[in-house]
């Protein structure tokens, strides 16, 4: 029961941000780079949440920010998930020698800190939406691969796999029929947690000025820009942070709920 409520609460929070992002595709109160609103207009009136120091509408930029947060989050989970699951499957099925080599490489990739890796990718390419997605996804793939490998090994040790193997099932069929159906719930929970981390990583990159460049109004960039005017326009420095927390808490709740729903033994004990 508890899992279902957690899951539902998470879905509501994520859905809220998702709805804002979808609306921003078809309708925005103002143009995101329109600076005609007057500088630091207070909330209310023509600009519902006021304007920033260049006169851009805060609500508009928050809506665009939702889109960027979700794009980078989902994009990097896609990159990291595909790379990670592929590498993890390979290591899980590999012979001992290849498995050892892959595991060592993964350990090193994981030891390489996410944010530094992301900053390195951005330093090599230029700061853009694509760079942020590739950088965060790449950093994430190590963790996903290591988890996948452990899960695959656990499934492959089961008796029914041995039975299936002796009866001549090819390994691609083994993957699609036995391995993936058994490991996807745990993987999904982990990918959901990674989504939250990716959103935070993108915010940090943008705050440092290494995220998607203007006119992409990422929440991290909004916070960085609002820091100087926090006393005159406090809403600009509060609202993007609140939205970030709402999205990440929502994603984490979805992950927790999924974990409880996928594993019945956890439901009663907590």
């Amino acid at each position, binding site marked *: 029961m508890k899992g279902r409520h957690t899951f539902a609460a998470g879905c509501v929070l994520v859905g809220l941000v998702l709805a804002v992002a979808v609306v921003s595709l078809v309708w925005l109160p103002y143009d995101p780079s329109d600076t005609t609103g007057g500088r630091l207009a207070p909330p209310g009136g023509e600009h519902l949440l006021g304007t920033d120091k260049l006169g851009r509408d805060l609500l508009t930029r928050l809506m665009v920010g939702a889109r960027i947060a979700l794009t980078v989050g989902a994009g990097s989970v896609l990159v990291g998930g595909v790379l990670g699951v592929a590498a993890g499957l390979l290591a899980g099925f590999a012979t001992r020698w290849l498995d050892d080599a892959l595991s060592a490489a993964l350990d*090193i990739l994981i030891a390489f800190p996410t*944010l530094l890796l992301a900053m390195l*990718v951005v330093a*090599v390419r230029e700061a853009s939406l694509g760079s942020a997605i590739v950088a965060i996804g790449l950093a994430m793939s190590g963790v996903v691969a290591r988890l996948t490998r452990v899960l695959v090994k656990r499934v492959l040790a089961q008796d029914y796999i041995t039975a299936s193997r002796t009866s001549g099932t090819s390994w691609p069929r083994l993957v699609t029929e036995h391995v993936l159906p058994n490991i996807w719930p745990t993987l999904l929970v982990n990918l959901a947690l990674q989504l939250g981390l990716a959103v935070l990583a993108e915010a*940090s990159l943008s705050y440092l000025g290494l995220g998607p460049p203007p006119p992409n109004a990422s929440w991290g960039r909004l916070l960085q820009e609002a820091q100087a005017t926090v*006393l005159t326009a406090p809403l600009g420095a509060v609202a993007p942070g609140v939205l970030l927390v709402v999205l990440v*808490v929502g994603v*984490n709740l979805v992950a927790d709920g999924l974990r409880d729903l996928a594993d019945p033994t956890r439901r009663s004990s907590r």
Partner: protein
Amino acid sequence: MGRYLLRRTSFLLASLLLAASLLFVLLRLLPGDPANALVSVGATPEQLAAARRQIGSDLPLPEQFASWLGGLARLDLGTSFVSKLPVGSEIAARLAVTVPLTLLAFTLAVVVALPVGFLAAWRSDRWYGPLLNGVAQLGVAVPVFWIGILLVTVFALRLRVLPAGGFPREDWAEPGRALTSLLLPVVTIALVMSASLIRYVRSATVDVLGSDFLRTARAMGESFGGAMWRHGLRNASVPVISILGIELATTFLGAVVVESVFTLPGLGTLLIKGIAEHDYPVIQGVLVVSTLAVLLIGFAADVVQRLVDPRLRAHVGGGRP
């Protein structure tokens, strides 16, 4: 243990070598020539060639790679394009800010998280157990730099009791002033870090509280405190130590962002500056030093974990999951 140390040390060296190679390859994949960062926009081909010779980017790649690794082995990280100072000494000066910042924040976070995490598990039936847990849940979702912005707003801009940022020019000559400027950044990092630590301490405690060995110890007549001290602490500490290692590394990296919030002259701001100025020796140097730090922390955590938990020592050879 000796064999394990040997194996773990060789893994550490291999990781560092791989990380250094990865850095080299990635930075050489750049579309432009790093020499372009050294000369002004309208430079003649001769000037460009001179710049290339100066930084060695005219050499074949294997030779560049050998000299980069050779420099690393001699702890020589090259010379900054912009300041013309040795990168090694620039980084050393920055570490005087980043290392105290990291260690103070880490200590504060541990001091807060251990009792709070224990309470959240032990008193999960009282009103404050779930509350503490909920606050920790919220804490892991908050971007660290946002906490920094909010704390600066309240304590530096509104109440004016602490500096909003910066670090004394004379570094640690006046420890009091240096500590004052580190106070807000330390609290910022510690707040966010303790949130995730609390969750790990809590779940480790939940496992111990429900364990058979604790029940047995209690049935044998030990007091709750005695049983926790003799059996619980050591069992709960195993997962927590490995997490502490990861968290210390995360703190070190969190410092990168928080230094920007408070404009502290640390490793993080040096890296950002290096990226903005295309100062490749600085970027390389900072990334190598931080990776080394993270790898060393992981090494220390693994070794300590083995000292605490004899079960890990039992099957050193074939300990494959």
